[in-house]
């Protein structure tokens, strides 16, 4: 096949079950009737991958997989591109390809996450999403939106007396007294969007990013070949929508300060993430609104490909890093057991010469595979030793199978494996030491920039995929599932029945699959012990 331009688009937190190309096992999604006409139109001409799984979770580990082909969560957590990594942009650039990044994803630029944009010939960063450290004015922030993003302005808080006194003495007392000391306060978002017009969707993030992408496609010429990477942070929270999307799936007043747009992660039946039925219904409606908003503006990119007659010389890859639980399984967010609503992600690939165009592929595939796939589409080669297996044979119609297993999970927590028909969750054993391997002294957990050293850190060439020495530092771990869980995702796509006890033979098969996968990956010795797997 010939070398192509590549348009590689990721849409953050895009639940595949909200897209017309995929079925939803959940009635409320079907009932809501979420509209995604542009992605549906795209899916009709592209290859739809029906068994695609995330790997390293959440956002930034997923980016490193796509960028470098390293399935990092067996070795480290949230952090920078490593000095020994080779990024997509670097490989493309060295192959004579013009590279461009368009994004509103603040995490690519914040403390502790270097290396994600520097290799592109050009990058544009649309400012202000989430807690982007951008606007510091207006001083008097919008009180209604402050409440919607999570501030309790009634001051009925469980603070110590001294803290409340401090708060009262603070002229900006509507804010938490620690907010000026906070590393990532939510008021950042409120000030960032203070000048946005709720009635003008062009003020909002997906509109800005995808508009710039469409402009870039219309105005870029003269280069033999290009890679355009669009990293769109929507649908990610806060679920703060402009009209018409904010009212599209609810009869509520979307600016009612009692209705949250930025839920805490956790269980919905108690604790900081507890939600009433009304609150959850509203959050679902705003999430759905954002999905339709993203789809609308993604359509402008497709329009630009039409207008410039680029489809015949361009491959288009569209995916997401993970999904988002909206009350299913009793959780909200993505810091939950890794159910398929989080881990099974959408993937569409358009290739002008693909015989499988317009069809659905059932082969099991993994996020890490997109690294080699994009390089293959560009005609570039990936480095030896990565974990990425190109999907080009499937795209070319030369193969129908791809992987026997896909691993996914969060470093520091439980591990999951699927064979495409079953998912098996295995708890991390917290009494087994957990290590982070990196060239930097990083705290993969917030606030990302540790100010003191760690006891017992060692250095050495510990990694199987590079001879570069790294630090090995011990960190705490935490399990969410506590006990193994097995789901038959063919028969039970909602993952409502844990069959680990009643299906010992399948459980044994999945344990063997996990063991083989870890051995293939040359996972660190302690990882086997953490998950109770024999070597």
């Amino acid at each position: 096949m010939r070398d192509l331009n590549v348009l590689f688009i990721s849409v953050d937190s895009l639940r595949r079950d909200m897209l017309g190309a995929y079925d939803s096992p959940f009635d409320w999604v079907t009932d809501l009737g979420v509209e995604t006409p542009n992605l549906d139109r795209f899916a009709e001409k592209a290859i739809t991958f029906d068994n695609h799984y995330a790997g390293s979770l959440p956002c930034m580990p997923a980016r490193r997989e796509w960028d470098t082909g390293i399935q990092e969560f067996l070795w480290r957590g949230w952090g920078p591109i490593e000095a020994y990594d080779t990024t997509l942009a670097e490989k493309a650039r060295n192959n004579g390809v013009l590279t461009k990044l368009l994004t509103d994803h603040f995490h690519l630029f914040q403390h502790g996450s270097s290396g994600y944009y520097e290799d592109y010939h050009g990058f544009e960063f649309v400012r202000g999403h989430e807690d982007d450290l951008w606007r510091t004015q207006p001083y008097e922030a919008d009180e209604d939106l402050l409440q919607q993003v999570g501030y309790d302005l009634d001051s009925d808080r469980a603070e110590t007396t001294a803290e409340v006194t401090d708060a009262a003495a603070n002229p900006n007392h509507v804010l938490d007294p620690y907010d000026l000391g906070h590393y990532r306060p939510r008021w950042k978002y409120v000030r960032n969007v203070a000048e946005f017009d709720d009635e003008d969707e062009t003020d909002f993030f997906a509109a800005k990013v995808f508009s710039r992408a469409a402009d870039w496609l219309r105005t870029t010429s003269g280069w033999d070949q290009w890679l355009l990477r669009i990293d769109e942070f929507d649908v990610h929270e806060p679920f703060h929508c402009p009209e018409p999307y904010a009212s599209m799936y609810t009869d509520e007043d979307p600016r009612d300060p009692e209705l949250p747009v930025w839920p805490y992660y956790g269980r919905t039946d108690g604790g900081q993430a507890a939600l009433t039925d009304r609150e959850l219904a509203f959050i679902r409606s705003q999430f759905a609104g954002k999905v339709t908003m993203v789809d609308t503006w993604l359509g402008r990119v497709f329009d630009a490909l039409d207008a410039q007659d680029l489809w015949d010389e361009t491959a288009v890859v569209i995916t997401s890093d993970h999904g988002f639980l909206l009350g299913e399984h009793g959780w909200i967010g993505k810091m939950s057991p890794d159910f398929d609503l989080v881990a099974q992600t959408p993937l569409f690939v358009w290739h002008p010469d693909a015989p499988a165009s317009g069809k659905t592929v059932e082969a099991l595939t993994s996020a890490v595979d997109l690294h080699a796939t994009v390089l293959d589409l560009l005609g570039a080669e990936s480095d030896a030793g990565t974990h990425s297996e190109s999907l080009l044979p499937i795209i070319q119609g030369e193969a129908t199978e791809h992987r026997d297993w896909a691993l996914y999970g969060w470093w520091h927590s439980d591990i999951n494996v699927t064979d495409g028909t079953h998912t098996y969750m295995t708890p991390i054993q917290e009494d087994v030491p957990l290590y982070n391997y990196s060239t930097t002294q990083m705290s993969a957990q917030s606030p990302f920039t540790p100010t003191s050293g760690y006891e017992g850190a060692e250095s050495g060439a510990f990694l199987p995929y590079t001879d570069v020495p790294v630090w090995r530092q011990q960190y705490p771990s935490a399990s969410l599932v506590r006990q193994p869980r097995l789901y038959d995702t063919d028969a039970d796509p909602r993952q409502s029945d844990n069959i680990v006890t009643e299906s010992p033979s399948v459980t044994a098969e999945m344990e063997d699959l996990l063991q083989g996968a870890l051995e293939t990956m040359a996972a660190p010795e302690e990882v086997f012990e953490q998950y109770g797997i024999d070597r």
Partner: protein
Amino acid sequence: MSSDWTDHGEGTTNPGETGPDAEVASPTVECCIDNLDPDSRQEIEASEASVDIRYCLQRCGRCYKQPFFVVDGEALTGADHATLLETLESGVTHDA
């Protein structure tokens, strides 16, 4: 709380007693592993308090600054985690 399918906290350390049959409502107490040193974690796990120790409660600034629990959704801060456990035992977590 209704949902299409509710996982009632199978295997979690503290799903909380929020149902109508709970005789005495126990507070839901959450703690971030990054807010703990190994000794504090051991102390919490050895205590009778039911504390859900998890990764990242999205309160990074406070977490960086001082020991804290989240009790029924509200931050409870103290000089150290032993003090926080004592506060939990006293049952007085709202002193404002």
